[in-house]
């Protein structure tokens, strides 16, 4: 990583940032100088963000009704950088599409709320279905007042009392029970109106709302229901038409990707510093990219001052790992744990080797390995994935090879019995356990070795010896001791030397003699940690057994079924489904358990986290695969 600083005239600002985004090699960092104000956010940003919001809203609606088939293996459409930059030429079409979807959404909402209202009205009229006079006859007349309403069933007794009390001046008609109320029709002389209504309300009488309703309740309900149904059909037709919106999906998606990049670039303004006529930019680049970055910068802003520098002691540059094509995918596994500090050692290669070994041991089947490799190859060819997905798929592709090799070693082909093997894990369980633990010890030793190397690289040789090499001595000595014979003696001496170093040094950061002694002695208890780390590798055997025995289960069941034509058919079905299931569940299991051994047992010996991934200002797409211009020209 190198630091880059640039000072140039403001006129070149836009062009320079565009150019930097194109080459995608500079991560901008904030320019904070006390007497330099940072540039305010450009006014256009809010407009761009609003546009993006609109586009996404339209895409959400389209997605809801999109019926175009897009399976797991369908790749994202390809786009060139030029085509992406030309997206504004699509804005007319995009605007039309957005208007269409917005109108559709509004209309749909209106339809829905109308239907909702109708449903409510039907519900309100339901209790009076049997009332056979038109509703407009209700209300006040010259001498009488009439109304419909409901009374809670609980108050039936009191309702009867009211009926009796007003028998002379009012007429009550009981219409129908409805849930826990009953509907009544009341007609009374105007004189008692106030009093009677008051008493009725007191027992929970709820008057029906009948204004602007004409006809009998039954007729009204019938009409409302018809309208409700026809609105439903209308909504269905509408939604049917909405499926056509998918035609504009690609336009809008291109628009979305375009806007995302515009916004990303405009946002970087916040990180620039400015004076009246010049601006200043700070950033990080990968050391190798220096010449290319300088060239691009000078092209965009010929009269600029550019400076490259090594990062300072107290600065924390972003992390960019550089590995060859086989190792790079395994960086994905590390990134799932956390981006390592840029100052730590890149352990990707060693991690990848152990990942390869351990994954293969867990799956360990010649046929499964071939299935994994071919399957991953197929996914890469058809889906053309990018980013993390691509990395993980490639890891599985590579680990398929390891699975095949270990499968041959253990004599596993679909767990068919009688395949010759170097070590048979089931018959020779002890050898298998020792093998697993051996790999574990090796893995941990390598981890400690990386830790020691990192410390030495930073000039802390004594730390390396006290903290890492001491434990390496204990572990190697322990192994030697277990082997016995001449190794036993040497091993014992090594282990004791290691313990002696630990006893003397592990308290060195504590204060006072007592603290130092206690620290040293306490560190010996870490042996339990190492023992549990090593035993943890037994899981390799456990996972291996799981793969083998699940396959055996299906083989046996199929074997029991085989007999007669029907039996063979069922047998083959059981075998196919069973082995596919086994590959699936154990790929997941092997993947995560291997990752766990890396994260917990391996990384704990040296890993320094807290880094952040190098994310240069560049062109990124959400909906497309970016196709490089060169590739297009070549083909």
């Amino acid at each position, binding site marked *: 990583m190198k630091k880059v600083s640039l000072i140039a005239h403001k006129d070149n600002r836009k062009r320079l940032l565009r150019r930097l985004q194109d080459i995608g090699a500079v991560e901008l960092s904030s320019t904070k100088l006390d007497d330099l104000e940072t540039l305010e956010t450009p006014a256009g940003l809010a407009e761009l963000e609003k546009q993006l919001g609109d586009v996404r809203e339209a895409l959400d609606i389209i997605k809801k009704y999109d019926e175009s088939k897009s399976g797991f293996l369908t790749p994202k459409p390809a786009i060139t950088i030029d085509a992406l930059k030309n997206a504004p030429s699509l804005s007319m079409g995009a605007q039309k599409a957005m208007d269409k979807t917005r109108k559709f959404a509004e209309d749909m909402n209106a339809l829905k709320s109308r239907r909702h209202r109708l449903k409510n009205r039907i519900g309100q009229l339901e209790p009076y279905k049997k009332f056979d006079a038109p509703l407009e006859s209700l209300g006040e007349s010259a001498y009488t007042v009439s109304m419909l309403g409901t009374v809670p069933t609980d108050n039936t007794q009191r309702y009867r009392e009211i009926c009796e009390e007003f028998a002379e001046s009012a007429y009550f008609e009981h219409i129908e029970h409805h849930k826990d109320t009953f509907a009544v029709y009341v007609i009374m002389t105007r004189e008692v109106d106030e009093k009677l209504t008051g008493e009725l309300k007191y027992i929970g009488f709820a008057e029906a709302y009948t204004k602007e309703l004409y006809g009998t309740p039954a007729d009204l309900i019938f009409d409302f229901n018809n309208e409700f149904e026809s609105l439903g059909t209308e909504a269905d037709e509408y939604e049917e038409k909405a499926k056509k919106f998918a035609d504009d999906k690609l336009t809008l998606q291109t628009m979305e990707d375009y806007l995302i990049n515009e916004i990303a670039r405009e946002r970087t303004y916040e990180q620039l510093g400015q004076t009246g006529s010049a601006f200043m930019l700070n950033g990080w680049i990968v050391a190798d990219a220096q010449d290319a970055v300088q060239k691009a910068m000078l092209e965009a802003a010929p009269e600029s001052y550019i400076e490259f520098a090594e990062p300072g002691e107290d600065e924390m540059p972003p992390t960019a790992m550089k590995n060859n094509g086989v190792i790079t995918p395994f960086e994905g596994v590390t990134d799932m*744990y956390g981006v390592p500090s840029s100052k730590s050692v890149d352990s990707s290669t060693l991690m990848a080797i152990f990942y390869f070994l351990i994954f293969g041991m867990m799956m360990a089947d010649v046929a499964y390995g071939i299935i994994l490799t071919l399957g991953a190859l197929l996914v890469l060819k058809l889906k053309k994935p990018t980013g993390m997905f691509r990395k993980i798929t490639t890891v599985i592709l590579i680990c398929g090879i390891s699975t095949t090799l270990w499968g041959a070693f253990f004599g596993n082909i679909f767990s068919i019995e009688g395949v010759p093997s170097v070590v048979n894990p089931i018959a020779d369980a002890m050898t298998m356990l020792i093998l697993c633990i051996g790999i574990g010890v090796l893995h941990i030793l390598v981890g400690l070795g990386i830790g020691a190397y990192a410390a030495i690289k930073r000039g802390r040789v004594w730390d390396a010896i006290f903290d890492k090499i001491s434990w390496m001595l204990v572990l190697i000595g322990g192994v030697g001791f277990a082997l016995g014979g001449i190794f036993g003696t040497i091993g014992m001496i090594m282990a004791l030397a290691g313990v002696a170093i630990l006893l003397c040094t592990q308290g060195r950061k504590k204060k006072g003699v007592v603290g130092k002694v206690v620290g040293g002695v306490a560190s010996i208890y870490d042996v339990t940690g190492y023992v549990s780390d090593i035993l943890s590798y037994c*899981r390799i055997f456990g996972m291996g057994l*799981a793969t083998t025995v699940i396959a055996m289960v299906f083989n046996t069941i199929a074997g029991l079924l085989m007999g007669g034509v029907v039996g063979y058919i069922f047998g083959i079905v059981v075998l196919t489904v069973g082995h596919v299931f086994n590959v699936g*569940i154990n790929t997941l299991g092997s993947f995560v*358990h291997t990752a*766990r051994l890396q994260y917990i047992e391996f990384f704990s010996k040296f890993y320094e986290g807290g880094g952040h991934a190098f994310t240069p200002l560049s062109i990124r797409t959400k909906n497309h695969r970016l196709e490089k211009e060169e590739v297009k020209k070549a083909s």
Partner: protein
Amino acid sequence: MMESNFIGFFGEYFGTIISTLGAALAVGLAGTGSAKGMGLAGQAAAGLVSEDPDKFGQALVLQLLPGTQGIYGLLVAFMILLNNGIVGGDAISAAQGWVYFFGALPIAIAGLTSAIAQGKTAVSGIGLLGKRPEESGKAITMAIMVETYAVFALLISMLTILLGTGKF
């Protein structure tokens, strides 16, 4: 007469019967744990997917993790049934039956408890996935931590059965 017949019958097949009980416990208890764990995680996953259908794949992986204990139980049960005269092999001695029975216990017990605990971790992991989808790898790792003990139980169960066959 009845009594002596009964005892004679029981004695002759005691090994097969007790080891079958072990197999039943291995599948039954570990399966119960897995069902419970996957159920818990499934509820959380469905909640998350209702908000964001795109996370289905990652949520499914987290739901799947507590399911392995049931499979381990099945494996152990199957190895027993394959040797004790039910699916394969001949009727076995009482001592051999007890060995199988005790061999089944680790995965039966650890399977039951670890799958439920793992399910709960997966539920939290699904919550994490909802808030910070880029950290789903960490959620999976946390759930896998719990699985360790089921794998160890499986290992000891299988070793007991594999190495303990034919010695009694």
